[in-house]
């Protein structure tokens, strides 16, 4: 296959295409562009506000980087912070981290389109495929959640998709660099890197050793400066913090491996809540079909490996871990639909868009609102102004969600961390509020701050009584 420039691949048709076909392909790209533009305008309607402690720590990392100070937390996500740092030249640090995730997310559908064309050259001949894939991307509330999160998921996924695309295009060194950038943006995507390593022998049978070497060189080219940067900020204490963090994650606060049921069962329950059984069955069938078909096998292997990893070891409370599965699956799904007869293909396109639309409107709405924690900040700020006899006295709040963000946003309030059981007594003595990420049984519910997308968490506000 001839080497192509990334954007040229979108508009170049195979030689010999009739003019009408060429025109249709151009028109489909234009329609996809319009869909994309509407989607981007919709996303930019949302306030660019921090929505979690992790995003706050990223913004602090942009101001001064130190993993020991949780600016941001281990392992530092240096490439994401660096990109946000560049954007922060024109914006405040907190806006910059949101913009970084948002811009990464809005570029992603185009990379997936290019990937579709590599995985399934037939898609060049089907203008509908371009439109369907763009629509399916825009109808993913999970992608919107990633875009507005200010976290590194969207950036990591963008680099992962680029690495896959460049691997298909035989640009192995650049693919390795993208893989390195992915790992330095979002290290927990390492199963995607493992997937990339695994598919090289499938794609380039005899040459796989040299391909691996060139890819590994790219990863090293990113890895060395990243490690030197981390060491320059925190010295060898970086490793000490890594040990503390890793131990803490698995033994204390990470919620991983701690559920009463196996992790995969928790995931299944969570996924059926968000999606429905039919979508999950379709995903499973699609992956199985992909693993059997030699042309689709590489992408199916990458997705299946990552899916296996999250089912075993990722926290099902964080739906955003599922985003790589859902988004990388879309080009695979469209490429599989292209294998069907013309009528069935068109029907399946219509059906997939209908299912996507139903799921979108069941999981999200077009109404623009703030993130749940920002809704809570606004509510508590108003309450703090009126809570005491002498005007603004501040109030007492116990929370196990976004403790640092609430402390920063509400400096006049006493914010207790409910991770510590002793906080409950102190908040109750003050007759304070309790903000929780899950419904509580024995307290009076004051109000609810609803999640906007499946990747977010609805927050519940309760009030303690002196006696209770």
């Amino acid at each position: 296959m001839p080497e192509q420039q990334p954007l040229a691949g979108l508009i170049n048709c195979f030689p010999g295409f009739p003019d009408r076909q060429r025109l249709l392909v151009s028109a489909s790209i234009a329609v996809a562009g319009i869909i994309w533009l509407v989607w981007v305008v919709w996303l930019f309607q949302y306030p660019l506000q921090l929505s979690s402690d992790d995003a706050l720590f990223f913004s602090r990392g942009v101001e001064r980087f130190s993993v020991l100070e949780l600016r941001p937390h281990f392992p530092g996500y240096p490439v994401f912070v660096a990109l946000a740092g560049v954007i922060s030249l024109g914006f405040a640090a907190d806006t910059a981290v949101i913009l970084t995730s948002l811009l990464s997310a809005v570029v992603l559908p185009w990379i997936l389109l290019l990937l579709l064309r590599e995985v399934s050259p037939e898609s060049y001949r089907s203008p509908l495929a371009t439109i369907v894939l763009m629509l399916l991307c825009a109808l993913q509330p999970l992608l919107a959640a990633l875009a507005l999160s200010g976290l590194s998921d969207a950036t990591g996924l963008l680099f992962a998709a680029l690495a896959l695309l460049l691997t298909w295009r035989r640009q192995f060194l650049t693919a390795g660099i993208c893989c390195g950038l992915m790992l330095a943006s979002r290290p927990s995507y390492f199963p995607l890197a493992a997937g990339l390593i695994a598919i090289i022998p499938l794609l380039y049978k005899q040459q796989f050793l040299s391909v691996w070497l060139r890819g590994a060189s790219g990863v090293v080219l990113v890895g060395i400066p990243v490690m030197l940067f981390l060491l320059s900020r925190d010295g060898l204490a970086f490793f000490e913090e890594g040990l503390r963090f890793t131990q803490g994650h698995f033994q204390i606060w990470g919620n991983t491996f701690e559920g009463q049921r196996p992790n995969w069962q928790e995931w299944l329950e969570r996924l059926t809540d968000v999606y429905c059984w039919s979508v999950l069955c379709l995903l499973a069938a699609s992956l199985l079909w992909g693993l059997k078909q030699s042309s689709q096998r590489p992408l199916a292997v990458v997705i299946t490996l990552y899916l296996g990893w999250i089912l075993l070891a990722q926290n099902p409370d964080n739906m955003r871990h599922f985003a790589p599965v859902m988004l990388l699956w879309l080009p695979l799904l469209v490429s599989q639909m292209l294998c069907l007869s013309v009528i069935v293909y068109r029907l399946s396109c219509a059906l997939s868009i209908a299912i996507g639309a139903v799921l979108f409107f069941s999981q999200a709405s077009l109404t623009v609102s703030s993130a749940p924690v920002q809704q809570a900040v606004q509510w508590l700020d108003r309450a703090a102004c009126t809570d005491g006899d002498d005007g603004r006295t501040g109030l007492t709040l116990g929370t196990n969600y976004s403790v640092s963000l609430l402390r920063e946003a509400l400096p006049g309030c006493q914010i207790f961390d409910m991770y510590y059981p002793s906080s409950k007594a102190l908040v109750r003595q003050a007759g304070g509020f309790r903000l929780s990420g899950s419904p509580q049984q024995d307290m009076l519910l004051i109000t609810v701050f609803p999640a906007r997308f499946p990747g977010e968490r609805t927050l519940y506000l309760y009030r303690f009584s002196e006696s209770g």
Partner: protein
Amino acid sequence: MLLVLSLNSQAYTYSAAGKEPLIDGREALLKAADSGDFEAATAAYEKVAKEILYFKTEYGIDLDTPMKNALKAKDAKQVNHVLNQAYFAEIDRRLKGAEQNVNDYQVAKVLVVKSKLFLDLLTPQMEAEARQQAEQAIQIALKAIGNPGVFGVGAEPANPEALANAHQQLIKALQAFSL
């Protein structure tokens, strides 16, 4: 390998298991005292008594007697107050240590970072103005440690004067918990 092992999480600011007995012990002690079970509270205190007695033997700060009195009087608020005083002493001790080791980046930085773990348990109990002063002071202290750089590149020297001033500012902000 550490990069590979690390995963994202929601609440990673806590000390790792067994690393800070005064923080781990506080929970059992306050939980028992709050529920009125002072037998369990006394048992919980005995597990951390060594840490409290350390202040007496090393610095002449007796927190053991007021704690035992509070437990005897079944006064949960006083138990919390004495614990807060212990945290105040712990923060002061670690920041002094950081000042003495200001030229050893790793030691100084870890001491200031760990003192912040204790501070984070005190700040919610403080008045707004004092809380903001304390948080500002600990940030200045963290910055004053500088950073080591690699082979001299990217190094930022420590600022002992700024660290000492931040220490004083923090102690002033924490007056409500002083002995």
